[in-house]
């Protein structure tokens, strides 16, 4: 039986269908989760997709943090359940304090849509274990508020702990230290701005490099060849 990956739909989520497709193409079983439901319905991992949850009017992810589903996701993450946040999902994870730092307006002040070249900085997370360390991937980056910021001390700590997961090779938004994605201490919660779910098929995306994200979590969940430092 393939692993069940929950994909959350908030009002205003846009990439939920794409996230479900990526899960399916990588061999998992996508399960729709509704923002107002507290129950996670026996899922093995959670994918928070991109979009503009609740309109994202005030600050991206600020309102989604208070949804029913996020209470449950927080508790499950603390128990080690793999959680991925992409774009708005990453913003929600930061606003919910599941990940450090914040995502603010791009330094050039515009929404920008470009394929982003990224370096996989660590494979010691539930969502990156099948990548080659240091390898290069291309995911579309498209956002107006994706500049990663945090205190210098926090950034130093992230670097020291090896918790920077993806780094931009051509920083598109002014993120501090070119950070595109980070993980929590346990390595089960990962957030990134660029969209792996839009890089699953060369017909519709710049690459199929994104399949490795879901493939990694599936491998993590089945415990195959546990070379990662991530505990379940």
């Amino acid at each position, binding site marked *: 039986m393939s692993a069940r990956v929950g994909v959350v739909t908030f009002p205003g989520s846009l990439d939920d269908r794409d996230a479900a497709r990526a899960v399916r193409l990588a061999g998992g079983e996508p399960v729709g989760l509704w923002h107002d439901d507290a129950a996670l319905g026996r899922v093995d991992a959670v994918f928070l997709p991109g979009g503009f949850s*609740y*309109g*994202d*009017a*005030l600050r991206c992810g600020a*309102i989604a943090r*208070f*949804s029913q589903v996020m209470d449950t996701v927080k508790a499950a993450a603390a128990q080690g359940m793999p959680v991925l946040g992409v774009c708005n999902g990453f913003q929600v994870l930061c606003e919910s304090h599941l990940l450090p730092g914040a995502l603010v307006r791009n330094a050039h002040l515009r929404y920008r849509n470009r394929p982003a070249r990224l370096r996989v900085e660590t494979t010691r997370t539930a969502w990156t274990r099948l990548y080659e360390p240091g390898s290069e991937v291309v995911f579309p980056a498209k956002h107006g508020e994706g500049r990663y910021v945090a205190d210098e001390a926090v950034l130093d700590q992230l670097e020291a702990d090896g918790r920077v997961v993806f780094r931009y090779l051509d920083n598109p938004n002014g993120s501090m230290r070119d950070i595109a994605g980070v993980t929590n201490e346990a390595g089960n919660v990962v957030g990134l701005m660029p969209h792996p779910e839009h890089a699953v098929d060369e017909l519709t995306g710049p690459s199929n490099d994104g399949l490795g994200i879901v493939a990694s979590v599936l491998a993590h969940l089945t415990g195959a060849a546990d070379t990662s430092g991530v505990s379940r």
Partner: protein
Amino acid sequence: MARVVVDVMLKSEILDPQGEAVLGALPRLGVNDVSSVRIGKRVEIEFDENAQNVEEQSRVIADQLLANPVIESFSLSIEGA
């Protein structure tokens, strides 16, 4: 040194989707007795020590750059001179 604060708000009859979204989220925080939320910009401008015509210049900045007169109005306050 003069510090000028320009508050820019949407005109009262213009839809404020940001404010509406926040209003809609308040019950999730347990707040149920708010009737309206409006969100605008607060701009803090610091002039050099010996700047002249601070008020006049601020008005020009607010009018031409900070506020969009079609949908927004602004108010000025000068905090020290």
